[in-house]
């Protein structure tokens, strides 16, 4: 029976990648010179699984490589070897190596990784310092290597006296004899002399011994194999038939085991070659020679979902089915009297739909730890190359976000973290001079905030150097010298295209193409990135992203004949009668005085150049929304329903329109535009921080 092992390859690759990630993060947690047995065990287990799997599925290069690592790990685990930071580094390099090897197998490419050979040599060098006997053993079975010169024998005489406890290990002598019998005709003589009196007998013990004669010219190892599992605990003697063993012929017919006679002793059986019961791996098994290119190149993007999420989904569907049958029944003999029940049913249906949709969305949600997990290694490696001391803290790793968003945010995050490492954290000596702890800290933080996911990269480094940024920006012609810029505006300059302040372009962070690309990528995800920084104390980069790119909780609003959609999360409040709260500003936009704040008013009708039904401003309605860290009040005609809308890209179907993030199709079939608050703010030309902090009413409401 041959089974195509390649069908298991994909699962093996995936679990190996996971195992490597586990190894990596555990290695980074290891403190040199101490043995944290739980962590070592974790690493060992991962390496062990990869070795076992790769051997089984025919990736011998991976198996061999992992074997050396495993051996070293075993020594560390056993306490015979200390862990040094050099060894940790070597392990980390080998994790990379294994990953590369597996990736190549995964891609179906031939594997030629020189560093693997080199690393293996290094490991073998370390190991050969003190190689305990047990380490020598590879996956092969040394016991089988006894001389087989006597294979010319025409049979074997076997004396077998198992230990008393043999049955308690699930071994059964009868089974072994049947197996022997499959090799050739077998004569069995039982020695029952050791069976005690019935009163003192232990029914679970085996008191018997046997003498067996196998009339088959099989090799010694074939016989050994039968007793492989019990040889150590038993009194077992195997000698060629016809040798000195024929000493006791008188025993032969004494207590003959009748069982063996039932089988009939065909002489033909002698011709049957020994079945392949070999449990020792032979290198040229079919597994190893299986062509690896069979693995189809079709890239299937898959997602691992917790079973609870799937169960939820099934529950929802169950509910939906119940609702459907209830509605169906109602429809059979519908009268106006049953209208309330119909409405109730529809209400239930909409609730089901919503819940179902939420569960489906949850399936796409993954904890951000998937993305965060790559950073410990990155920081570890980079801080070594730069001779900086940096500690990375991860918080909020369980915060979930959409898989697509997650995939796309990876690179911008890497860039920002590299940037903090390179430009943010100072050299240890500079930090000490500045009175800071020698070790810098970079924190990656994630949390949910009003329907968004917020990711922060916080460092306690030097902070942004405003003077330098300004100088550079002027030099690049991004701003003029006379511009009066706020701190935030200056900081924001680093996101302008073609901006770099690194004294020397290092290979760590970008070559000045970075930050604008970061911002553009994030904007493409409907997200935003901002920086706050205090010179000498550090910087905080804050990324805000929608949880999903597919669905939006929307508030339908009407301006004239047009219905637009505002993201519900951006709405702070709505105000109907705002007479007396209005402040008209000459040459600027009107302001709404909202408690202690002044909020600029944006008239949607004038921005989109459409007719509003409200003749006067006072007839309308103000919706206070927040976007890009500031509040504005939108003047609209009316609020309509709230509903979830499926976001359709406007760019794909039409073209990009400022102030609009997408479109959707409403229940009545019309297309409605989804408003983009930061875009609207820009479009309306509202100055950003002009109205932010207000202490004195008269100053601002001129």
């Amino acid at each position, binding site marked *: *029976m*041959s*089974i195509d*092992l390649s*069908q*298991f*390859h994909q*699962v*093996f690759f995936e*679990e190996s990648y996971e195992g490597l990630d586990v190894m990596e993060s555990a290695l980074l947690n290891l403190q040199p010179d101490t043995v944290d047995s739980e962590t070592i065990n974790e690493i*060992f*287990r991962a390496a*062990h*699984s990869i*070795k*076992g*799997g*790769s*051997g*089984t*599925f025919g990736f011998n290069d991976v*198996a061999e490589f992992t074997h050396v690592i495993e051996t070293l790990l075993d020594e560390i685990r056993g306490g015979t070897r200390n862990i040094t930071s050099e060894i940790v580094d070597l392990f980390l390099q080998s994790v990379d190596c294994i990953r590369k090897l597996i990736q190549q197998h995964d891609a179906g490419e031939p594997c030629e990784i020189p560093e693997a050979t080199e690393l293996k040599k290094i490991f073998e060098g370390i190991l050969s310092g003190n190689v305990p006997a*047990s380490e020598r*053993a*590879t*996956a*092969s*079975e*040394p016991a089988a290597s006894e001389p087989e010169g006597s294979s010319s024998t025409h049979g074997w005489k076997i004396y077998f006296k198992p230990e008393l406890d043999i*049955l*308690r*290990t*699930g*071994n*059964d002598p009868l*089974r072994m004899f*049947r*197996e022997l019998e499959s090799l050739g005709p077998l004569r069995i003589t039982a020695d029952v002399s050791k069976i005690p009196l019935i009163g003192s007998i232990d029914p*679970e013990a085996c008191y018997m011994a046997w003498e067996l004669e196998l009339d088959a010219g099989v090799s010694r190892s074939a016989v050994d194999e*039968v007793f*492989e*599992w019990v040889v*150590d*605990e038993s009194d077992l003697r195997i000698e060629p038939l016809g040798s000195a063993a024929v000493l006791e012929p008188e025993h032969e017919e004494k207590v003959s085991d009748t069982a063996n006679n039932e089988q009939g002793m065909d002489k033909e059986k002698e011709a049957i070659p020994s*079945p*392949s*019961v*070999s*449990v*020792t*791996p032979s290198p040229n*098994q*079919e*597994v190893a020679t299986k062509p690896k290119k069979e693995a189809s190149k079709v890239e299937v993007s898959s997602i691992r979902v917790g079973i609870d999420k799937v169960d939820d989904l099934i529950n929802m569907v169950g509910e939906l089915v119940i609702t459907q049958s209830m509605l169906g029944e109602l429809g059979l003999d519908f009268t106006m009297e049953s209208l309330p029940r119909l409405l109730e049913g529809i209400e239930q249906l909409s609730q089901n739909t919503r819940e179902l949709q939420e569960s489906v969305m949850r399936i796409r949600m993954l904890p951000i730890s998937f993305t965060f997990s790559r950073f410990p290694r990155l920081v570890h490696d980079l801080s070594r190359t730069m001779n900086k001391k940096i500690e990375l803290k991860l918080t909020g790793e369980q915060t979930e976000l959409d898989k697509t968003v997650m995939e796309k945010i990876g690179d911008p995050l890497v860039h920002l973290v590299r940037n903090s490492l390179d430009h943010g954290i100072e050299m240890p000596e500079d930090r000490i001079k500045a009175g800071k702890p020698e070790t810098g800290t970079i924190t990656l933080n994630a949390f949910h905030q009003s329907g968004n996911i917020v990711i922060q990269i916080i460092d306690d480094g030097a902070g942004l150097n405003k003077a330098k940024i300004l100088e550079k920006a002027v030099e690049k012609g991004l701003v003029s010298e006379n511009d009066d810029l706020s701190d935030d505006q200056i900081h924001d300059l680093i996101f302008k295209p073609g901006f770099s302040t690194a004294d020397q372009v290092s290979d760590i962070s970008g070559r000045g193409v970075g930050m604008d690309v970061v911002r553009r990528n994030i904007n493409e995800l409907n997200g935003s990135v901002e920086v706050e920084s205090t010179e000498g104390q550090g910087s905080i980069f804050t990324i805000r992203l929608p949880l999903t790119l597919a669905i939006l909780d929307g508030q339908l609003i009407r301006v004239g004949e047009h219905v637009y959609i505002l993201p519900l999360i951006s709405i702070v409040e709505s105000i109907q009668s705002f007479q007396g709260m209005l402040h008209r500003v000459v040459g600027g936009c009107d302001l709404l005085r909202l408690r202690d704040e002044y909020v600029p008013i944006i008239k949607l009708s004038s921005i989109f150049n459409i007719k509003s039904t409200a003749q006067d401003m006072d007839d309308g309605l103000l919706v206070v929304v927040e976007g890009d860290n500031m509040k504005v009040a939108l003047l609209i005609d009316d609020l309509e329903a709230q509903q979830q809308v499926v976001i359709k890209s406007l760019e794909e179907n039409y073209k990009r329109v400022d102030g609009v993030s997408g479109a959707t199709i409403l229940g009545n079939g019309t297309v409605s535009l989804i408003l983009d608050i930061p875009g609207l703010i820009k479009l309306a030309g509202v100055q950003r921080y002009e109205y932010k902090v207000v202490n004195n009413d008269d100053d601002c409401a001129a």
Partner: protein
Amino acid sequence: MARILAVDDSASMRQMVSFTLKGAGHDVIEASDGKEALDKAKGTQVDLVLSDVNMPVMDGLTLVKELRTLPNYKFTPILMLTTESTGDKKMEGKQAGATGWLVKPFNPDQLLATIKKVLG
């Protein structure tokens, strides 16, 4: 045919073992660690247990010891699937009560030949 409990924390190994055994007509119950295996074993009776050694939560040796304390698993064959081929590791398994072992890596044919040894 036989009812076999296959225990391995590696999904690919579990799939391979399970696929092979099912292909040979056996009924397979899967578990991904010793604890899960023990729980599943308690709820049923199997003819053979195939277990990995290194596993999270509960390792294979502990599983064997625990199984042997259950009256209906006293004599059930339990084979360890192990990469350890050295004598002392095998002894540990035997002392825990394992019937025998199958050294990884193995291919489906080797697996079938080995279980034939214990299932007859």
